[in-house]
Every structure is written in structure tokens, then in C-alpha cells.
């Protein structure tokens, strides 16, 4: 069965420290993976997708098919990065998107 696992419910780091939000997926097909973010009092929105190989707000994520992982990383966390982060898997053909349970990132001053 298709599944997205985010093992950490809460991640707390100090400003300026590196941060890594973990995501593992289970899917036998060719995955499309995404990270979504929800800032306080804002709607959930796309942060980045693996096919674009982009860096958004200093965040990057690399798809590792061998480890079935898509961890989100940023070398120096900022207080404004505090938010809820969701990893998502879109199945082949885009017929369904599955979200992980989310990780709340708290960046302390």
C-alpha cells in the first residue's frame, strides 16, 4: 500500500542550526514527491517538488529511491521557518495525492 511516513511530530532547533525533516514513502511505481508548508493562520501551500530540483526559501529535498526517502533540509534555520510541514506523494498519473501526518518545526531564537 502507498504510504508516507514522517517520523517526527515535532522538531525544535535553534536559529542558525541545520534542520532536516524526515520523510519516507512506500510506493512501487514512479513517485512524484512534494513538500507542503502551513504557516500560522495561512492556508496549506506547496513548498517544493522533487521534479523541479529547486531550492525554495533555502530548503532543498533530494529524492533517494534506494532509501525511499525525500528528506527536507535547510543549512541555517530561521525563526520564520516555524510552521507545519507535510510530505506528500502523488501516484503515477496524478490520480491521488497522499500526505504524511506532518512535522511541526519550531525554530527558537
Amino acid at each position: 500500500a502507498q504510504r508516507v511516513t514522517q517520523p517526527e511530530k515535532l522538531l525544535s532547533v535553534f536559529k542558525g542550526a541545520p534542520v532536516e525533516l524526515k520523510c519516507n514513502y512506500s510506493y512501487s511505481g514512479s513517485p512524484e514527491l512534494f513538500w507542503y508548508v502551513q504557516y500560522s493562520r495561512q492556508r496549506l501551500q506547496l513548498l517544493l517538488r522533487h521534479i523541479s530540483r529547486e531550492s525554495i526559501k533555502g530548503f532543498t529535498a533530494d529524492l533517494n529511491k534506494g532509501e525511499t526517502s525525500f528528506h527536507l533540509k535547510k543549512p541555517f534555520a530561521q525563526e520564520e521557518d516555524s510552521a507545519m510541514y507535510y510530505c506528500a506523494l502523488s501516484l503515477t498519473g496524478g490520480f491521488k495525492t497522499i500526505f504524511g501526518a506532518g512535522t511541526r518545526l519550531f525554530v527558537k531564537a
Partner: protein
Amino acid sequence: GAGVSQSPSNKVTEKGKDVELRCDPISGHTALYWYRQRLGQGLEFLIYFQGNSAPDKSGLPSDRFSAERTGESVSTLTIQRTQQEDSAVYLCASSSQAGSYTEAFFGQGTRLTVV
């Protein structure tokens, strides 16, 4: 508007009453999702529509919950005989299956409070 719209934005209801939550997806988006987000919690999948049919209803928590979609557009989530544990933000999202561009666009949510 160009985005996903949900109404009402807030709903307070008495325990035992029925409520209907509405979602207007982005025009042309064939996939539509409902999620529930309890305070401080992550996304809980409820139901997924492909066109007007719902191939996956596995997330509906009980038979008090139902959803429909018409015209491959508007969707309504109905909760019958509401309970206090139904209090949450209900999120709707839509996506297009055009090529591989499958970003999900979210509405602002309906905050349901059962008193």
C-alpha cells in the same frame, strides 16, 4: 476566484445537528480531496474524488460522514448528528491530472465547532 474556496469559513453548531460544508475547487481540476485537521494535529485524510466518483472513502470516520460531488465541480461534506469530537478544521484541496503537474491547491478551510 482562481483558488479553492470553502464555505462557511466558520461554523458553530449544537451537538446532534447536521452540518454541510462546501468546497468549490479550481475550475477544471478533476481530483478533489477532503481532509480534517484537529487542533495542533496533522492532516487526516477523509475522502478523495476523481471526477464525480469517490474511489477512496477509507478515511471517513463513521457513517455519520458522507460526501458528494456534482458536475465534476462543487463538493459537499455532510456530517450528521454532530459530536464534539467532530470539532476541527475541514480542508478541501483540488488538483489537475494534466501531465505530471499534480500540485494540490488547498482552500482556507472550514473551522467547525460543535458545542
